[in-house]
């Protein structure tokens, strides 16, 4: 699927709009839905290979037009309000690079902000599916190119010279005769008196000086000085801290509050209100909110999954898993079944939103990846017209899928409305794990049939607790469903599964199917949705298959891989990662490959499972096997910012290590037991690889692939395969330590634990 790198200059459309200084708007989703030719392959292409989730999002976005804009200011800066969320993925840096490139403006003269909810964008304001770079790459550059062209034309007219004689560099226009003008000095003169349709040429990749070069984050200075503003740091007048006492089971209800009057008298408390799933308290400080919610005496009603625990959910999943086919004799088969525990998509920043709901209007501040759906839903809940609700998108302290939903924003609006005052509502850390969205438990059953050295069939039956796609991705897909090249009438979840999953191997008859059970847990997408589980199961079976046929795991993959880009990243990883090097007993390598979002990745890790490593003592910490060396080789099509891409791969590897080895939720009687980061054990310094390397392959395409999620699945697979080879036992339950509860759970009531008081005993 490689395409030539040197696509020449092409012309793109945009508009100059009437404004005090130069402003350009451009249509969205142009150049979308280009479908690469499917390759001839013994296995017919699966849907994801010819048309993936990002293509579907691009297609859905195509009709929306004229809605993103670059503005040039008298101080020489250009600004761009991007209709996407920044949650750590470096999107604002990449967008600033696009503007800087096409305008010939220094990167630090580009200001990128996050646009609030803009209903006119329809579904074109969703940050998810690793789609941001793919969908805005051409429109943003087009807007910037038109702005530059207009500035040049303005200078040419002023100086009475042909525009073709002028050059631009670092925000300055030059004429060979010696005259110069800064963009800032022309910002007003270049403004258009009326909206005018114009065309501009984009640079070809060979002309790039910014795009494709490693750049540091544009928000790094603010971050390291503590100046970056997250939702909790905003100062909205009157928006005092608020927290919620929550039921002891997921989505339980409030029957009665027995001591509201007494709690109202506690220091700092200003208001108490019963809400749908708890009792909210507003106070002068969050600490006093914690004191007050803990003091509340509440009678709770049941929630929808009170009778469910890990074992009951697993039994339901196994029962619902469809059968695999029985291949004809004399073929041999390998069967395997893998269980993946519930996982939390909570970022480090607790869910938080500010809401100021008054008669006839409301204003919301939160990190939101689908702000239009949030606006629509909050307006409906408050009984307000949609345009009476203003939604501000704030930069988020991570997302990992959590901010696709606006749960905390809706709750803040409910609390503000009921109290009649502005609130800054934060979930507690324990709320985030116990009542927040989860990646649901799932079971993946795989059967491969082979005869001699030939693989005849690969079947995967993936059964999961229902994943909630109610954040609007579903609406967008259903709106374009008729245009998707997938036969049949699939559900939204099945559509997303089909659009994201495909086997990279020529394994003959290949089927990968999803089944869901409708348990009402609070679920949602987590970084890379189904792929980490599906690919981990697949790669473990591939290793077993290779062993059964008597081949080395790498040689076997090379033979069966369909895609040249995947073979190239595999070869690079094998060489750079020294595949097959001599290692002590109990230490082993593992490899995993994955193609998705039009990118290709190979991960090669070494894991140390020797007792002296596994049993390292860390107070209140999980040790276990350690991935000591990790390598990711990534082909991201066109790597917009290789340094940012590398960061996403490093994060993907650490997510994968957590998913494979240490992090999960244990469900007991309708509630996860995990309540802190020492319970939900995401990778820590003592788990992270000592040697972490990322190799970015030379660009194989002229357009970027998705990147934010790409590294997780192959890394998860590589860690699992390495563990299997180091221990001689293929793991079938993930994370591998899920069977042992490594912590003392916080009580289920009160829902938020009290903060410690002994901090001065632990200084260093």
């Amino acid at each position, binding site marked *: 699927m490689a395409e030539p790198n040197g696509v020449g200059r092409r012309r793109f459309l945009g508009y100059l709009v009437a404004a005090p200084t130069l402003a350009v708007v451009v249509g969205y989703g142009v150049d979308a839905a280009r479908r690469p030719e499917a390759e001839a392959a013994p296995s017919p292409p699966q849907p994801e290979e010819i048309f993936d989730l990002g293509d579907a999002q691009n297609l859905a976005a195509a009709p929306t037009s004229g809605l993103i804009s670059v503005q040039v200011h008298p101080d020489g800066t250009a600004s761009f309000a991007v209709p996407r969320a920044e949650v750590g993925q470096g999107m604002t840096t990449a967008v600033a690079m696009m503007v800087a490139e096409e305008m010939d403006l220094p990167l630090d003269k580009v200001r990128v902000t996050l646009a609030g909810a803009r209903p006119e964008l329809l579904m074109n304001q969703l940050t998810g599916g690793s789609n941001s770079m793919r969908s805005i790459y051409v429109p943003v550059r087009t807007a910037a190119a038109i702005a530059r062209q207009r500035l040049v034309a303005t200078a040419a007219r002023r100086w009475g010279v042909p525009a073709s004689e002028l050059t631009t560099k670092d925000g300055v226009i030059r004429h060979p005769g010696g005259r110069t003008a800064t963009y800032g000095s022309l910002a007003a003169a270049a403004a258009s008196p009326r909206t005018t349709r114009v065309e501009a040429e984009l640079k070809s990749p060979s002309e790039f000086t910014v795009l494709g070069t490693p750049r540091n984050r544009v928000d790094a200075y603010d971050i390291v000085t503590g100046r970056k503003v997250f939702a909790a740091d905003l100062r909205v007048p009157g928006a005092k801290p608020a927290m919620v006492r929550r039921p002891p089971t997921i989505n339980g209800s409030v029957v009665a509050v027995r001591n509201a009057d007494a709690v109202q008298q506690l*220091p700092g408390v200003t208001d108490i209100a019963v809400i749908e799933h708890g009792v909210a308290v507003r106070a002068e400080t969050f600490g006093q909110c914690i004191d007050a919610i803990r003091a509340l005496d509440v009678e709770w009603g049941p929630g929808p999954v009170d009778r469910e625990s890990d074992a009951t959910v697993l039994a339901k999943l196994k029962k619902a898993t469809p059968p695999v086919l029985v291949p004809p004799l004399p073929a041999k088969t390998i069967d395997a079944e893998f269980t993946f525990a519930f996982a939390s998509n909570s970022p480090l920043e607790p869910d938080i939103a500010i809401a100021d709901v008054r008669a006839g209007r409301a204003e919301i501040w939160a990190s939101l990846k689908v702000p239009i759906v949030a606006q629509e839903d909050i307006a409906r809940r408050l009984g307000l017209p949609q345009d009476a609700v203003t939604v501000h998108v704030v930069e988020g302290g991570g997302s990992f899928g959590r901010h696709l939903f606006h749960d905390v924003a809706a709750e803040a609006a409910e609390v503000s409305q009921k109290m009649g005052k502005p609130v800054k509502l934060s979930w507690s850390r324990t709320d985030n794990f116990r009542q927040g969205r989860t990646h649901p438990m799932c079971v993946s059953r795989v059967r491969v049939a082979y005869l001699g050295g030939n693989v005849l069939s690969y079947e995967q039956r993936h059964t999961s607790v229902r994943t909630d796609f109610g954040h609007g991705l579903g609406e967008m897909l259903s709106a374009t469903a008729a245009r998707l090249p997938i036969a049949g009438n699939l559900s939204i979840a099945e559509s997303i599964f089909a659009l994201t999953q495909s086997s990279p191997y020529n394994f003959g008859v290949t089927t990968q199917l999803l089944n869901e059970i409708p348990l009402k847990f609070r679920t949602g997408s987590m970084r890379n949705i189904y792929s980490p589980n599906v690919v981990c199961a697949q790669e473990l079976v591939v290793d077993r298959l290779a062993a059964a046929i008597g081949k080395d795991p790498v040689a076997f993959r090379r033979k069966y891989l369909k895609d040249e880009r995947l073979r190239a990243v595999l070869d690079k990883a094998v060489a750079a990662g020294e595949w097959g090097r001599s290692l002590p007993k109990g230490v082993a390598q593992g490899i995993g490959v994955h193609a998705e979002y039009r990118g290709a990745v190979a991960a090669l890790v070494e894991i140390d499972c020797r007792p002296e490593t596994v049993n390292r003592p860390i107070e209140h910490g999980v040790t276990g096997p350690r991935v000591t060396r990790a390598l990711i080789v990534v082909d991201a099509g066109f790597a917009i910012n290789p340094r940012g891409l590398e960061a996403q791969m490093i994060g993907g590897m650490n997510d994968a290590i957590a998913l494979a080895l240490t992090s999960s939720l244990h469900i007991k009687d309708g509630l996860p037991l995990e309540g802190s980061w020492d319970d939900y054990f995401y990778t820590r*310094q003592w788990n992270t690889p000592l040697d972490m390397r990322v190799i970015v392959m030379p660009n194989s395409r002229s357009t970027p692939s998705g990147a934010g999620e790409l590294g997780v699945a192959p890394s998860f697979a590589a860690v699992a395969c390495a563990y299997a080879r180091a221990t001689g036992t293929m793991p079938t339950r993930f994370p591998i330590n899920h069977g042992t509860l490594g912590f003392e759970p916080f009580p289920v009531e009160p829902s938020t634990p009290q903060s*410690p008081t002994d901090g001065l005993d632990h200084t260093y």
Partner: protein
Amino acid sequence: MPTHTFQLNGKQVTVQAEDDVRLLWVLRDLLGVTGPKYGCALGVCQACTCHINGRAFNPCSVPVGKIKPTDEITTIEGLPGTVGRELHPMQEAWLAHDVAQCGYCQPGQIMAAVAKVRQVRATGREIDDGDLDEIRNVCRCGTYSRIRAAIKDGAQHM
């Protein structure tokens, strides 16, 4: 309501709060100093890490009543002031290695890193992988390898 006086980023501050309110909320909610982040208020994630008299601690786990008038509290905002420069060498190392992703944990990571380097130096050693393994600060974006590289680099200039 009790009055509390202490030294904050080189200046004396006075604030009214109940004795048991944790210092993190006094800093964030009452004094508007928002560099220290709320990640758990359980003394686990360490996103609020600051310095007290030059040593790292978690203000989420210290009632303000335990802070003495002579105690010097340093938050990320006051870290450059401790070396009399625009940025502390550890902050510069963070920029050079492009460490941050979402950035939420990074003020705490930097404060922890500075204290860790000092702690190791006090024993006559330079920081190594074993010391870095002891840092408990959670980075949910998983940028640990860049944190490690930045600390080793930043230590060279401290």
